[in-house]
């Protein structure tokens, strides 16, 4: 929980999120036009999507299954009967004058999401509901000084609106919620979670109350915030704004606000104020949606292992720390990669290499784990060379860099560059003798009590052997020699 310190005392944030997630499907929710992102203007549009007279919607079975799959992934109640309603409003990118949505009887009811917080703790946030609805078209306001351009390619694409309970108390928790929801959707394959292309968008509901007050304050809704970072910034700004109003004796008006990325502020969207009477009614073009319990069971049986279960298994089976496990399971591809590396090896060592060196290198190269220049097998072989003492951990980092650059296997690089660890006692002793002889003054200082010099000798011998001396043996032999 993060507290906003006002001039008259502390305040608590109450946050709920509405997420619009585009269903992964080939065709739209009620028509046979493509749901693909982009495309030439109005190329992915059927007469249904453009609301020509007499056109009738026919629902896409896969979109229904995807909603059920998502509901099951959120441990939510699946409603075997749900109803489609018309939500009426006028806007240039909504040709029919109504959006087909679900109001009183959504397809998915109450569920929950477990948040992984930075300090390693977890927190449960309730899901209120999930319903299916159509996306609207796209308006472009910057193409002409006098006109708005409308492209209906998005019109009719299936969305899942996922509504949370007002259970979050800070921007960090809101961010953790979005990350976890995104991970679950991606594991399930029901939404690609791409916030940049708008396939996942968040509306933030925020109100403030005195710490300890059980009553909720008046909330504002901040629309369409399109990145997790902006969600956190918008929450910080809006919380401060509301506290200032409340402390100066004013009242917060319930309204829809817009996050202005450029200015870093939220501002009122007055144009939407009067349109809030949507006059929902059941769509007479569509019968109630009845699900076969057998279909729900079939989907349940094909659910993949989800992030929470995978994380628990990684902690249990590989002895990972909660934080490392969370990092690895955030993307299914990373988790799969890690498991290949860790199989039959030291799980913690494998985790260090994947989250440390590998993620670092991928970040630097701007590549995803799917196109990693070092495969899981290749990284595994490198770790094997550390495990059997062929090379030290230090040298392994250099070998890894060479693997990234050349794509060669670890063993070939070790042979080529002669990096094999020196485990020959005689060779290490010779190197130690040479360093001690060249630094007789420091040896005397050490022997008169300056223990810190030990590190200096280790460094010098390592340098002399090109970093190849086995560190444990070196420590041992050097200790004996210095004792005299």
């Amino acid at each position, binding site marked *: 929980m993060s507290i906003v310190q006002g001039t008259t005392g502390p305040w608590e944030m109450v946050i709920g999120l509405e997420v619009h997630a585009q269903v992964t*499907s*080939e*065709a739209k929710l009620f*028509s*046979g*036009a*493509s749901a693909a992102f982009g495309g*030439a*203007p*109005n*190329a*992915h*549009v*059927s*007469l*249904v999507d*453009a609301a020509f007279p007499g056109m009738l919607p*026919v*629902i*896409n*079975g*896969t*979109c*229904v299954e995807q909603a059920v799959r998502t509901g099951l992934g959120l441990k939510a109640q699946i409603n075997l009967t749900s*109803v489609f309603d018309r939500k*009426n409003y*006028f*806007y*240039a990118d909504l040709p029919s004058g109504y959006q087909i949505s679900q109001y009183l009887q959504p397809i998915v009811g109450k569920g929950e999401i477990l948040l992984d917080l930075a300090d390693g703790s977890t927190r449960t946030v309730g899901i209120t509901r999930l319903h299916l609805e159509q996306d609207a078209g796209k*308006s*472009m*306001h910057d*193409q*002409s*000084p*006098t*006109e*708005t*351009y*409308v*492209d*209906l390619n998005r019109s009719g694409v299936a969305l899942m609106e996922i509504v949370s309970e007002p259970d979050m108390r800070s921007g960090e928790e809101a961010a953790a919620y979005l990350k976890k929801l995104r991970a679950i959707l991606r594991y399930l394959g029901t939404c690609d979670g791409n916030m940049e292309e708008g396939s996942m968008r968040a509306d933030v509901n925020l109100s403030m109350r005195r710490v300890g007050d059980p009553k909720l304050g008046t909330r504002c809704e901040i629309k369409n915030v399109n990145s997790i970072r902006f969600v956190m910034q918008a929450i910080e700004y809006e919380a401060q704004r509301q506290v200032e109003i409340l402390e100066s004796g004013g009242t917060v008006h319930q309204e829809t606000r*817009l996050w202005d990325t450029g200015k870093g502020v939220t501002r009122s*969207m007055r*144009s939407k104020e009067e349109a809030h*009477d949507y*006059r929902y009614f*059941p769509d*007479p073009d*569509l*019968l*109630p*949606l*009845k699900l076969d319990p057998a279909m729900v069971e079939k989907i349940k049986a094909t659910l993949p292992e989800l992030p929470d279960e995978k994380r628990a298994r990684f902690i249990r089976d590989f002895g990972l720390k909660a934080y490392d496990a969370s990092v690895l399971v955030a993307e299914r591809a990373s988790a799969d990669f890690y498991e290949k590396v860790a199989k039959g090896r030291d799980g913690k060592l494998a985790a260090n290499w994947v989250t440390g060196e590998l993620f670092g290198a991928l970040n630097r190269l701007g590549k995803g784990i799917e196109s990693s220049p070092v495969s899981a097998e290749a990284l595994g072989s490198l770790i094997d060379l550390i495990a059997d003492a062929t090379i030290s951990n230090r040298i392994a980092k250099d070998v890894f860099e060479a693997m990234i650059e050349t794509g060669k296997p670890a063993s070939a690089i070790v042979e080529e560059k002669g990096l094999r660890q020196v485990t020959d006692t005689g060779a290490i002793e010779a190197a130690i003798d040479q360093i001690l002889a060249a630094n007789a003054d420091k040896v005397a200082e050490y022997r008169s009590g300056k223990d810190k010099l030990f590190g200096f000798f280790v460094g010098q011998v390592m340098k002399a052997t090109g970093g190849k001396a086995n560190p444990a043996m070196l420590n041992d032999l050097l200790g004996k020699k210095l004792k005299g």
Partner: protein
Amino acid sequence: MSIDQTTVARIAHLARLKVPLEEQQQVAGELSKILDWVAQLNEVDVTGIEPLTNVNDMALRLRDDVVTDGGKAEDILANAPSKTADFFTVPKVIE
């Protein structure tokens, strides 16, 4: 049930219908009559009966997830009062 003139004006605005001031009183009377007629249903005791959204005893037909339509921007835009390239154009909508 009676509908007043203010309600008529509000509904007309929400539906983007132009109902002149002098006709609003008359429309209010007509709408009230329709509502009164439908309100007769309130006399029926429906205790314990689930609400019904459709009287047809049929299941909603599901479509396969296959792209079968699109690629006809020209048809889509054929009746548009105003267009540029393959976009519909409307008077600027200012946020």
